[in-house]
């Protein structure tokens, strides 16, 4: 992306801040952030750096009319990174019109839609592509063009989706860290001859019965998670090309609130032209309230991930155990600390994350995160991050 384009879009993103007004019909809000990543080992690849600064903005424009039965939302989002040209990018997270009928709702445009119940991996969640340059946790998603009809019935909510355009996954560039510098996103392979114009579709039924949340979904179209094809570039460099298959995916979500715990299970059955497989992510979340004779809440999480393809394929979570604990002080500043740990039984690799955040005043939020990766087997995707342990400091201003 050219520097000129990014600076002009940044200007537009900032303008949102100065038009911050609130009314029933029109509203602007959003946030801007400054982020620094600091690495304390020499990079695995010479193109990478020891620290990386970036600046991001995401204003939200919202209109509603017809007694709130109609609304329109526009959320552009952009980041400028000191070194990584791939992380310097712009996306439209939302640009959609929602119309609410009696027991139905239509949502047309670019949107984000989340499915699922587990915490460490979102297997069932498939509508949106991951914006992987934003963060390594895969929680950020690119906006997906869609026509969505949502029906509210006594027996649950049914969503029907037509997804007319595919979004490629973003990957850090040669100077981005953490990153795999030899993924070539300029040469993407598709199984479908329509490439990114393949029309995908999906349907999901979700219902809550007492302490139970159930979801069943079907997706047909272009896989959001790419496979990688080794290649030699015209200049003789070894590289990996993202390859997007055509797949059908059955998704099953179960969540039960039994006593003090939330039991969670996500399962998928992926059928495709190479190798069909099952995968699951399941576990339990247990919460303690008012710990240490204070208002603080303490949560405990244990999950396990399994993928039938095992180590045959370049996948991070095929036989992995996750452990997490979250402390929310419930103080005025909403201080929170999350510690997470994952262990891969096949590659004996570990990754550790620490996330903490606190509000300052009414508008500022500061997050301090740390990530550690430990891996010594080349077949393990985590191996590429083995030298990328880092601390990340983010300051956000909300308006």
């Amino acid at each position, binding site marked *: 992306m050219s520097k000129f384009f990014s600076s002009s879009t940044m200007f537009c993103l900032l303008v949102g801040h100065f038009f911050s007004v609130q009314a029933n019909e029109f509203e602007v*809000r959003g946030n801007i952030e400054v982020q620094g990543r600091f690495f304390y080992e020499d990079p695995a690849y010479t193109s990478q750096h020891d620290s990386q600064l970036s600046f991001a903005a995401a204003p939200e424009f919202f209109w509603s009319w017809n007694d709130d039965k109609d609304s329109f939302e526009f959320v552009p989002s952009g980041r400028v990174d000191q070194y990584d040209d791939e992380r310097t990018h712009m996306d439209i997270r939302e640009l959609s019109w929602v119309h609410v009928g009696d027991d139905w709702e239509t949502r047309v445009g670019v949107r984000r839609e989340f499915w699922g119940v587990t915490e460490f991996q979102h297997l069932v969640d498939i509508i949106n592509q991951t914006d992987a340059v934003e963060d390594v946790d895969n929680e950020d998603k690119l906006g997906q063009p869609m026509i969505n009809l949502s029906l509210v019935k006594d027996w649950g909510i049914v969503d029907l989706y037509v997804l007319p355009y595919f979004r490629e996954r973003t990957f850090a560039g040669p100077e981005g860290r953490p990153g795999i510098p030899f993924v070539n996103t300029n040469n993407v392979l598709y199984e479908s001859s329509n490439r990114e114009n393949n029309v995908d579709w999906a349907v999901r039924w979700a219902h809550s019965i007492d302490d139970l949340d159930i979801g069943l979904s079907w997706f047909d179209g272009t896989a959001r998670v790419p496979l990688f094809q080794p290649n030699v570039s015209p200049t003789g460099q070894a590289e990996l090309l993202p390859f997007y298959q055509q797949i059908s995916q059955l998704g099953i979500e179960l969540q039960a609130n039994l006593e003090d715990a939330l039991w969670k299970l996500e399962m998928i059955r992926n059928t495709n032209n190479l190798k069909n497989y099952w995968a699951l992510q399941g576990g339990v979340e247990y919460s303690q309230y008012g710990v240490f004779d204070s208002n603080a809440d303490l949560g405990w999480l244990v999950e396990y991930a399994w993928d039938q393809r095992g180590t045959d394929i370049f996948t991070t979570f095929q036989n992995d155990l996750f452990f997490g604990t979250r402390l929310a002080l419930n103080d005025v500043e909403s201080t929170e600390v999350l510690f997470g740990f994952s262990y891969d039984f096949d590659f004996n690799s570990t990754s550790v994350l620490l996330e903490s955040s606190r509000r300052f005043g009414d508008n500022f939020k500061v997050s301090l995160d740390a990530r550690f990766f430990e891996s010594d087997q080349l077949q393990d995707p985590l191996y590429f991050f083995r030298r990328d342990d880092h601390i990340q400091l983010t300051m956000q201003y*909300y308006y």
Partner: protein
Amino acid sequence: MKQINKGIAILAISLLASLAVNAGEAEDKGLRISKESKARDEGWTDSKAELEMILKNQHGQTSIRKMRLKSMEQKNDGDKSLTVFDSPKDVKGTSFLSFSHTVGNDDQWLYLPALKRVKRISSRNKSGSFMGSEFSFEDLTSFEVEKYDYLYLRDETFDGEKCWVITQFPLDKNSGYKRRIVWIDQSEYRIRKTEFYDRKDTLLKTLVFTNFHQYLDKYWRSQRFEMVNHQSGKSTILNYTGFEMKTGLNEKSFNKNALKRAR
């Protein structure tokens, strides 16, 4: 001597028996008044309000939270409610859907706009703090007769109003309280004050309701709740504004699609 002992024994037994009768009467009276208090508040159908929550720490420093609240009465069950947070800015748009039940656990979901995610909250969170305030989730759910055992204590004047003082014992094992004592005024059956005793039966918090307004010529609502935590020295004030009843909300205003749309 034996005769005297026997006489004392009979006296003691009859005294105990009369105490038991009194205890039974006190339970009935406590239940009767609490039932009437609830009955007088039935039929409001639905309501909307804006809320300002002022958190005060032990040093007197304050912080303000703003939110909007929609509620709907349910026949033979607890209320449904939808809360949307407006401030602080970083949680703006976060919404909370709650179905409270007379028997069994409440159902609660939180919508996180940044992730577009609806997340179920463990029903165990009853005793957990609501948004860092001195109110716990259970302090803010609707009062249901079936949720407590009752014991009438005494008559007492509070805030110039003659009140019945009643102990309510929560039946839910997940409640953060051993008991609570309520002051219900004799003129309109409004709760004027509640004392909360923690699981160790120590006085934890006092909640005082003031600034009552009557809606639809029937329903009394306090516009100001003040909760003081005696153990931490912190307090929270809830100010209600723009209160409306029978606004035409229906079941569809309280499902997960409505939760995702709330803002």
